């Protein structure tokens, strides 16, 4: 659907499409942004939770539902073939998006949470032979994770008898390679880390950490949910066995996601769900499973969602990843500078570059009150623990207010955020 973008946003020329005029044009592609909230233009700054969908993605969804909706892999009729072709094309598009090669496969899921559950369960359950995770094995999970990349590993450890170890960040919220080196042992079987912490915006040196864990013989898991919209890692260049992300955080539909992995690693996983379309042969008492990716996609998938997610990937590439990245970093830098100047306000991971998230705590004003007062001005932010309670407790800061940026946000919106926070603090203190 990138062909539906005006030609000047196509990134081939290396232009910066997200400059002031480019942003205005891009905003027009997102119908949701044109509304007013409580009398104010909507400033949607909750993109780390969910991004909005542009017209090309909405069009792709509608086109499928209106013209090609049918079940896949089962029908001999024309619509079934079209739906199957579109689903397979979506898989191919998203594989290209993350740099997956022939040694990789992509499995569609309902999102990052399901992808991580699929991996953790798949390693701790029987996959026909023995469980990949055995009693006495060790799992290392970074302390920056949201609950989706912690709880599945807690359960996997309990169910397999493996030991769960946490790679804690330092007082500034940074993960350190030397700390990982101390945790790695010959029994380390899994290392899971995020490409960007949703609660703090921290960007850990994940490539270095994955390489160390891989070197030590561990399977490596990278949660790319928070970077998929602007800086999705190239899996072909990373020692990464499993890469996960969600569609709804990259301008795609909600309830969509992907698990990309090395085929050999994906083969280790016991299917989370069994049933239709994931089998090769079935009797009343036994079954043999199909090859990847069907083996891990039992039941009718979210075909429209997969098509929408692929359209979102195409949209991102049409606008240009570097241009989006530059735009987001500029907005974040502006927000950090403006917010840090407010008395009694502390930005978490303030010195971290390459992030689209600014998360902060304020003396004498609870994030929920700040968030409600900002909402009264049409500014949508997230407040609370961001499904990362252990991390925030470790950093000793409790709940935070978090603004997170997307390609359609503007410097004016950041100004409104800073002014709105200043006003809320004045009222609440």
């Amino acid at each position: 659907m990138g062909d539906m973008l005006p030609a000047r946003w196509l990134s081939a020329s290396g232009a910066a499409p997200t400059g002031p005029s480019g942003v205005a044009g891009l905003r027009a592609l997102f119908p949701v942004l044109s509304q007013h909230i409580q009398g104010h233009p909507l400033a949607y700054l909750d993109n780390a939770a969910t991004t909005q969908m542009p017209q090309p993605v909405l069009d792709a969804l509608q086109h499928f539902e209106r013209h090609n909706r049918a079940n896949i892999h089962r029908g001999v009729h024309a619509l079934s073939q079209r739906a199957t072709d579109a689903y397979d094309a979506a898989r191919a598009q998203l594989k290209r998006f993350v740099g997956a090669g022939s040694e990789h496969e992509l499995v569609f899921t309902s999102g990052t949470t399901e992808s991580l559950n699929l991996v953790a369960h798949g390693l701790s359950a029987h996959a026909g032979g023995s469980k990949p995770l055995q009693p006495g094995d060790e799992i290392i999970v970074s302390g920056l994770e949201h609950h989706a990349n912690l709880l599945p590993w807690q359960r996997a450890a309990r169910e397999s008898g493996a030991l769960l170890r946490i790679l804690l960040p330092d007082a500034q919220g940074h993960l350190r390679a030397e700390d990982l080196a101390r945790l790695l042992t010959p029994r380390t079987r899994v290392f899971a880390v995020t490409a960007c912490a949703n609660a703090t915006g921290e960007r850990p040196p994940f490539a270095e950490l994955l390489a160390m864990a891989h070197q030590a013989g561990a399977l490596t898991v990278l949660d790319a949910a928070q970077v998929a919209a602007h800086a999705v890692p190239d899996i072909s260049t990373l020692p990464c066995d499993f890469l996960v992300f969600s569609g709804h955080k990259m301008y795609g539909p909600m309830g969509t996601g992907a698990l990309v992995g090395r085929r050999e690693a994906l083969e280790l996983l016991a299917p989370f769900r069994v049933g239709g379309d994931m089998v090769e042969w079935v009797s009343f008492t036994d079954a043999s499973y199909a090859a990847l990716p069907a083996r891990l996609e039992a039941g009718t998938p979210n075909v429209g969602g997969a098509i929408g997610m692929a359209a979102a990937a195409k949209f991102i590439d049409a606008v240009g990843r570097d241009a989006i990245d530059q735009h987001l970093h500029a907005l974040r830098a502006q927000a950090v500078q403006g917010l840090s100047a407010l008395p009694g306000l502390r930005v978490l991971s303030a010195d971290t570059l390459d992030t689209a998230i600014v998360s902060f705590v304020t003396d004498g004003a609870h994030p929920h009150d700040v968030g409600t007062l900002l909402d009264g001005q049409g500014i949508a932010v997230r407040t609370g623990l961001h499904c990362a309670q252990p991390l925030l407790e470790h950093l000793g800061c409790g709940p935070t207010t978090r603004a997170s940026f997307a390609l359609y946000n503007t410097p004016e919106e950041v100004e409104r955020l800073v002014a709105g926070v200043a006003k809320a603090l004045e009222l609440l203190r």
Partner: protein
Amino acid sequence: MSSAETDLYQELVLEHKRSPRNFGHLSAPTHQARGTNPSCGDDLSVELAVADGKLADIRFHGQGCAICMASASMMSEAVKGQEIAAAQKLQQHFRAVLTGEESADAAPLGKLVSLAGVSRYPSRIKCALLGWHALMHAIASNPAAPTVPVSTEGETPS
């Protein structure tokens, strides 16, 4: 920010938030309970001195947003010295007003009426009810048993 400012953050609410009444501990509580809200980190404990079916004394401590702290502070003032049954009845009225089942004008809320605007902010109702939740659990608690945190998470207005 006129609407949230006038609906939610009235001067009385902010004043209670800044100087919560009956904040702290009782030297010898007969009943106590803790309330938490896992999504926002709010965490309040209520301690009671119950005698002859009355809430002879009350203290609360912990942390929360302005709505949560002001509600608990006003609650402590309203129920201190009251019969347990009266406190329970007040809780029912307060809850019914916040969830839209009862009109604020008709309910005998006293100062607590300044929190009636919370009913227009469904995501904040659990903040206003956290202290009350802990109070009800404290009343129902067995003083001999260890306290188990209660939570308003997932509680939906009915």
